[in-house]
């Protein structure tokens, strides 16, 4: 779990860049909202939850030793 942040970080980088972004960069509506806005707001909310879960997973470990 400790190194999972790297995956999320890289995943985030990819999902917020061209060409991945191009999938949602369309003038369409989704449930009445612009598609790109939904994608970004939704993805952002999910990423915050992911970080939250990640911080919970490191809660029990001694911060002195799991740094490296």
């Amino acid at each position, binding site marked *: 779990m400790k190194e999972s942040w790297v995956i999320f970080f890289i995943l985030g980088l990819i999902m917020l860049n061209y060409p991945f*972004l191009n999938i949602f960069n369309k003038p369409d509506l989704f449930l009445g909202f*612009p598609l790109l806005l939904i994608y970004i707001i939704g993805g952002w909310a999910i990423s915050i939850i992911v970080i939250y879960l*990640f*911080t919970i997973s490191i809660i029990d470990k001694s911060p002195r*030793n799991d740094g490296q």
Partner: protein
Amino acid sequence: MISFQSLLIAISLYICLHFLVAIYAYKRYQKGRSIVSNSFVYSLSITVYCTSWTYYGSVGRAATSGIDFIVIYLGPSLTAFTWWFILRKIVRITKENNITSISDFISSRYGKSQFLGAAITIIAVMGIIPYIALQLKAVSSTFILICNHPSFQLPEHLKNSFAINNSGLFFAIFISIFGIMFGARSLATQRRHEGLVAAIAFESVVKLLAFICVGIYVTYFLFNGFTDIMGQMSSKYPYLFDHLTTLGDLNETSYANWSTNLFLAMGSVMLLPRQFQIMVIENSDENHIKEAMWRFPAYLFAINLFVIPIAFGGILLNGSNSGADYFVLTIPMNTGHHWLALLAFLGGFSAAAGMVIAESVATSTMILNHLLMPLVLRLRITDSFSTLILALKRMSIFLVIFLGYAYFQIIGDTFMLVNIGLISFSAAIQLAPSLIGAIYWPRGNAAGAIAGIMGGFSIWFYTLLLPSVIKSGWIDTDILEHGLFGLSILKPTELFGLTGLDMWSNSLFWSMLFNIGGYLLFSILLNQSEAEKEQCIKFAEPYSEGTRTDLWETKRLSKPVTIIEFVGLMENFIGEKQAHEAISEYLSLHEIDEKGMVSEFELPSLKRFVEKTIAGSVGSAAASAIIENYLSDVGSGMESFYDAFRSVRSSLEESREALYVRLKSSEIMNRSGSLQSITKELLELLVKEFHFDLVTVRLIDNDRNMPLLSEKSILNGDFRISAKISPTEDFFISELLTTKKSQFANDTRNITRRTASAVTPVDTFAAFAHIPLVGDEEPLGVLSVYSISIVGLFTEELLNLLSSLAGQLALAVKLVDEREAREHEKNEKDAALLKNAAVQHEMEMAKQIQLSLLPDAPPNISGLQIASLSVSADHVGGDYYDFFVSDDRFFDAVIADVSGHNVGAALIMVETRSVLRAQVNINTTPSGILASLNNLLLPDLTRAELFISMFYIKYDCATQWLTYSNAGHNTPLLYQATEQECQMLDAEGMIIGVKGDIVFEDRSIMLNPGDLLLLYTDGVTEATDDDGELFGIERLENILIKCHDEPIQQIVDHIYREVICFSGGNPLTDDVSMVAFRIEQSPYDQQD
């Protein structure tokens, strides 16, 4: 409707609230009950990232360029993923090295490079000034907006007044005062500013609440929720709607712009000075990072949720996106909700205030430590050092804020808000390669970091800052349109012919290329210096405490240093009170006596602590130089700082020479040389630094004379100081010896006292001083300094300094004296041992000689069996026995005991033997022999106070008559074979040596065959057992009776064994001697 007065009151109250929050937090902190040290406040304070740019600019950008505003907040959210590893590591390194800013962090890693620190500071200042200007502009513009709103009843006379148009100035003053109060309160060792953080967290709450209130108002009161706004927008302005909700057309530029912004935002959240200040420097607990990792993105998420609704709502209400930058404010105002507008204004005010406070404090620290501090050290400023530093720090805060104000006044109005922010971001990102390399790439070196940062910075300047200045109309637009020197290849926004990119992407690409390229290239080409390697290890492994401590102390100190000395050093840089607080904190964690010496074991940790503490005030580079030099190590690569440090006054009273001399002298004293060489070096130093013409040291010897120990002179040999003087000859010296105080004369022409030319040559010198080398009580010597020409040389400061040096010298003298005393004592002890061994040896020889004087073996006489034994208790004894045989018929035997068993007794025994041997042939009777012996020995014995007891027998083998005479000796035992019992032989007679002319009695007895006579000394009968009982005559008798027919030698040995057994193996207390003989059965008797 709100009046102008209520507006002013509301703002004033809000400003007061700021101070109250900060003061409350500060007081709580001082009491040790911090309200700031928790992850919630930490997370909130990090949101200082959201400035007025966020508050107003996001909406503006959303309404004009669309959804790409959000990327500025997505970037930090993404970066937050890495915090638990990168940020935590940075925080740990920062805490362990007492780092004060981002420039300090990077310059520390690269060998505490002063140049690098200064370069980063300049970049930061240049990048930050526009950003601060932006905040001032936001506050100023919104204030004017409110005041000039038609519905706002501004009194006519105030319209276009100075106060209204220059609200930015008042804001700047408020922020400056606040920053100074809570950001530069003192030169305290602690780098955290709790009051400041509390205020920033408070502002973060206000700006979020205000923005959300406006958002809810627009979304749910002016419209019917999100979908309603979206629906209205898409139906009313379909083209604009599509433009704003997508990244424009599918061309490269939009994506490049998006990615550039994303990258800039990702870096800026860590690299902007204020972010570093709040996230790293103000962090009180690493665990807070964990919570902040999701709370900070959540905050960003919340504050951005209503950006698009407000932007779209504003467009729908306004009919266009003009003035979108202030929709947050203008929508409530235009719809008549003035209190909401006021709240929105305060939200924007908070956003601006938090940013400016944090940024100015962070930047001022950098300016002080990297720009002003080296200057102060070099300029040899002579005023109070700590006050100066504090004043400079406060001035720096003012400077940063008012530079921002000046920028805003001069060129601020030409840009949209968002652009200024991005210029700052682009400057901050230049630190990214060096910072990342600092913690993850051990190979990175100072040359690389400098090259990278300078390269990147140059590009940034040329491609972003310059165009921004040009666009303000201050410089001709030629460069922008046609490139530098008309070369289109040098067009700032299309550098090197790279077209098709927006100016941000263009700048980012080229600056990063040069930055990363330069960093990698120089790091790989050049080697790290020693200082860098040391720092590199500290940065690479901040989690492993142990190894680092060992590496730290690379040089061994020759002399122990006291804590007091360290405190004295710290006082100069952080103030007396703080220094004492710091050291008591340290001492509470380490077991050292405050007055005590620091052990070598403790020294590295204390040294690091002191350096860290000083670093909190002057930055790590300067602190390192100061400490290294203080500990009399000229650190490698730090020589340039040595001169600078020399100029620092160690206290208010002392000049730089004094400090230098102190430093050098302690260096000299620390060397473990002979007293002579230490003194010589010290005198040379004094002559060199103070230009004395003659300096001498005299020590007072045991006769209270004062021989010259050492002298140093720059005279031309026409004056010779005499080597040895007597203190009583000179008034000054005798006065010195009685008062133990320095004696000096600043003008010898005024002296009327009696002086000795040997020590106080008034004719030669214009001024002189004698300083006692005071040990514990008595002066150990005198340090004398003379000057030929300088009248009035001896000021109080100089005398104080000289006294201090003399004190040190006295200590050295005392140490040498003690060492010599110890050596002397040891030598004496050795000599005594040696002598003792020699005596032992001689005594052993004496013993051998004495034993050799006793008969080797009993004489061989027919009819007699003879045996003897003598054992001395000590090396030499006083027992004596002898045999003489004359005419083959007479057998004489004598046994004697000289009182005592020392050397004297032994000598008397020898004399007795000689005299006796002479008398034996002259006298015929035992009594005659004893009488003449007494007369002959009496004078010697009287002198030696010794006596002799003696028993003499003469046995006639023919007649078998035994004649005997006794001089006070133990009565011998005679075993008579016929009676089978023992009889004691005695005769009248006094002990020899008491008086002269004594008459001894001769007695005779007829012996029969088988009779056995035993002569013995008192060592036999007076042997004692453990209970103190004597061996006695009875035991002796019993042995004789029991063993009378054994071989004669066995009987003697038997008795000796019994005596030894009786005394229980204890060493003999007295000499033991025995002589025994037995009459053999005659052949005739046997035949009968």
